[in-house]
């Protein structure tokens, strides 16, 4: 049976709206009824509650109390299952953190490849267990550091990488066969991945042994983060090419990290984050299958990336629902047979948008709570934000404290000792069920629009997210939602912390390196490789081999993207009204 139930649910941030979850109505027992009449009502008369309605951070109404009446048709084996078993609500591994702690993976990148290489080595020395690389805006948009549009932006939001030479510097001395590397790159993901693969190969690492993740999730770029270059169809073709190439040539690589993080940062609710992300996942599966690959050949390497916001139980419910929904989608909608295809493996990052510029030390507390939610929700890897990130990329001192936060959680809190400790909570199970139902409602709506590509071309998810963001902003301004240090407990203090400053000398050094590179490389080989890439782009052949040849010839990111811009064109989003 296809998923998608005909039920009404509350999705956007509608303060005061009731959840009509489509779940069985509450049937309070006679004991509960008696408690309401004899204990609760007199108590409320004596001291009323602080407010009339309580809602999650996303605006979902929360009851005073959850009891067995909220889980009328709840079925342990169907709704939860044991950890490591379908539908994986309790976790993808039978032992979870008793077997192995999550990967501690701090997202890092700033300045030149030399600067970032040093930071990556430092983090490994501090006990970080995976790498994660942030690229600067020119790199994300497919421009070299010496492009006029790169002015003022080189090395500011991440590391500048324009060629294989930069990538070799970035990865210098890192143990690529032992540590996994995640790279946050989307529109030009195929090119940056090719640079990684060639740099790994030159350092002696075997493509069959290396592992890591390219974010490569273009759909959420159109929906939320907006770092797109090409129109959707050719962008999806690049994603399909990397997934199919990876399945054959780099079998331990996760060619995509289907991301809700940025959707949430753009202001979505928890349900929207989950629904749009998983529906994006469905879209990718459909496109790769249409390209002729069987679902079980590539689905085991699909990975996910979620946000950890501040409402602890809402977040835990989201992660638990994510696993259950994805397992059901893969088995029922796509008929996947391999249990590994059913697993929703995910990375989590604490919510950047929850960090406040005011009273920045409070961010350590927020991040700790959010990280706890991710761990209670069974994440496979985790990034914890640094206290200074509402202002700038983190200093070494700040990122160390953020990493230590994870280490304290892992080693001291005790939450790792048992699997899925919140299971069986009436509240958490009910919220998990409601989250799941609300997602199916969104799936149905997007299916009826013809899938996620047509939906985003008409601006549907963008509008849903914007409405939620605006409603939240209004709730903050009305003080219905409190942000400590911003709309309550306000103090007049200047920023008390030292910030990381990236100056224009980074751009100058990058420009000099590029100038040398363009002079010293075999430009005839570069030209030939770029021409082949252009011809291949206008056919249906897999582009990875052509991109790899360009990379080996030291063609730059900008040169390759220019060729592709010439063939594919560029994208403008639907106007915002």
């Amino acid at each position: 049976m296809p998923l998608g139930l005909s039920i009404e649910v509350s999705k956007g941030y509608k303060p005061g709206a009731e959840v009509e979850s489509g779940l069985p109505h509450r049937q309070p027992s006679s004991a509960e009824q008696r408690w309401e009449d004899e204990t609760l009502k007199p108590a409320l008369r004596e001291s009323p509650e602080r407010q009339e309605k309580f809602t999650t951070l996303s605006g979902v109404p929360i009851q005073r109390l959850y009891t067995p009446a909220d889980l009328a048709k709840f079925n342990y084996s169907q709704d939860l299952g044991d950890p490591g078993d379908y539908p994986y609500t309790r976790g993808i591994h039978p032992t979870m953190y008793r077997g192995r702690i999550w990967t501690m993976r701090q997202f890092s990148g700033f300045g030149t490849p030399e600067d970032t290489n040093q930071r990556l080595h430092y983090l490994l020395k501090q006990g970080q267990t995976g790498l994660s690389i942030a690229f600067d805006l020119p790199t994300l948009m497919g421009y070299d550091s010496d492009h006029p549009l790169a002015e003022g932006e080189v090395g500011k939001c991440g590391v500048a990488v324009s060629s294989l030479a930069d990538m070799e510097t970035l990865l210098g001395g890192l143990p690529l066969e032992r540590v996994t590397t995640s790279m946050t790159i989307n529109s030009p993901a195929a090119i940056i991945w090719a640079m990684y693969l060639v740099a790994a190969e030159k350092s002696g690492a075997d493509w069959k042994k290396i592992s890591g993740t390219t974010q490569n999730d273009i759909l959420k770029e159109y929906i939320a983060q907006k770092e797109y270059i090409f129109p959707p169809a050719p962008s999806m073709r690049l994603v399909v090419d990397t997934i199919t190439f990876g399945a054959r040539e780099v079998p331990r690589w996760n060619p995509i990290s289907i991301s809700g993080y940025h959707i949430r940062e753009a202001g979505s609710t928890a349900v929207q984050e989950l629904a749009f992300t998983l529906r994006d996942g469905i879209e990718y599966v459909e496109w790769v299958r249409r390209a002729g690959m069987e679902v079980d050949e590539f689905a085991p390497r699909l990975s996910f990336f979620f946000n950890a916001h501040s409402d602890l139980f809402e977040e835990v419910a989201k992660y638990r629902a994510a696993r259950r929904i994805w397992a059901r989608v893969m088995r029922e909608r796509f008929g996947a047979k391999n249990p590994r295809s059913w697993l929703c493996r995910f990375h989590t990052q604490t919510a950047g948008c929850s960090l406040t510029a005011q009273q920045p030390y409070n961010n350590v507390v927020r991040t700790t709570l959010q990280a706890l939610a991710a761990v209670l929700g069974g994440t496979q890897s985790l990034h914890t934000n640094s206290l200074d990130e509402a202002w700038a990329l983190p200093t070494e001192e700040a990122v160390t404290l953020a990493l230590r936060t994870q280490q304290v959680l892992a080693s001291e809190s005790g939450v790792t000792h048992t699997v899925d400790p919140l299971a069986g909570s009436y509240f958490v199970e009910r919220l998990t069920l409601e989250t799941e139902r609300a997602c199916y409602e969104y799936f149905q709506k997007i299916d009826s629009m013809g899938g996620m590509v047509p939906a985003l071309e008409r601006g549907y998810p963008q509008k849903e997210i914007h409405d939620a963001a605006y409603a939240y902003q209004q709730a903050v301004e009305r003080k219905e939602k409190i942000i400590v240090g911003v709309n309550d407990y306000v103090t007049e203090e200047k920023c008390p912390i030292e910030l990381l400053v990236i100056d224009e000398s980074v751009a100058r050094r990058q420009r000099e390196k590029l100038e040398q590179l363009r002079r010293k490389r075999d430009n005839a080989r570069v030209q030939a490789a770029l021409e082949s890439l252009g011809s291949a782009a206008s056919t249906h052949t897999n582009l990875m081999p052509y991109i790899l040849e360009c990379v080996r010839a030291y063609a730059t990111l900008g040169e390759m993207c220019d060729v592709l811009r010439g063939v594919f064109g560029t994208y403008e989003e639907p106007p915002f009204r």
Partner: protein
Amino acid sequence: MMTEPRIRVLVAKPGLDGHDRGAKIVARALRDAGMEVIYTGLRQTPEQIASAALQEDVDAIGISILSGAHNTIIPRICELLRSQGTEDVLLVVGGIIPDEDIAGLKQAGVAEVFQPGASTQAIVEFVRKNVKGVPTG
């Protein structure tokens, strides 16, 4: 009954960054406050922004910038506004702007900088009080 001329505001997002949550929220808040808002969309060059301000004959420009490129981009916009004779247009900037950069931006011609956590109400009020040539009330 006379209808008052509405304040016209250009909301612009320069640079390569695509994070438009703030720009869109501010655009909508200004609209809800009765102003006429033109949103440029993403990745506008200083030249495009200045020329849109001229063509649309706006009273105010709101620039959203989070990427750290403000010290390069904002002074250039100010310069272009001056050279085309539209320096009386109220220029406000919002985004991730560290304290120590504010004085320089104001010197270049920015009327006010709204840092993270600013309320849309404060922005609406500031624009209303400070635009030139439009009767307040």
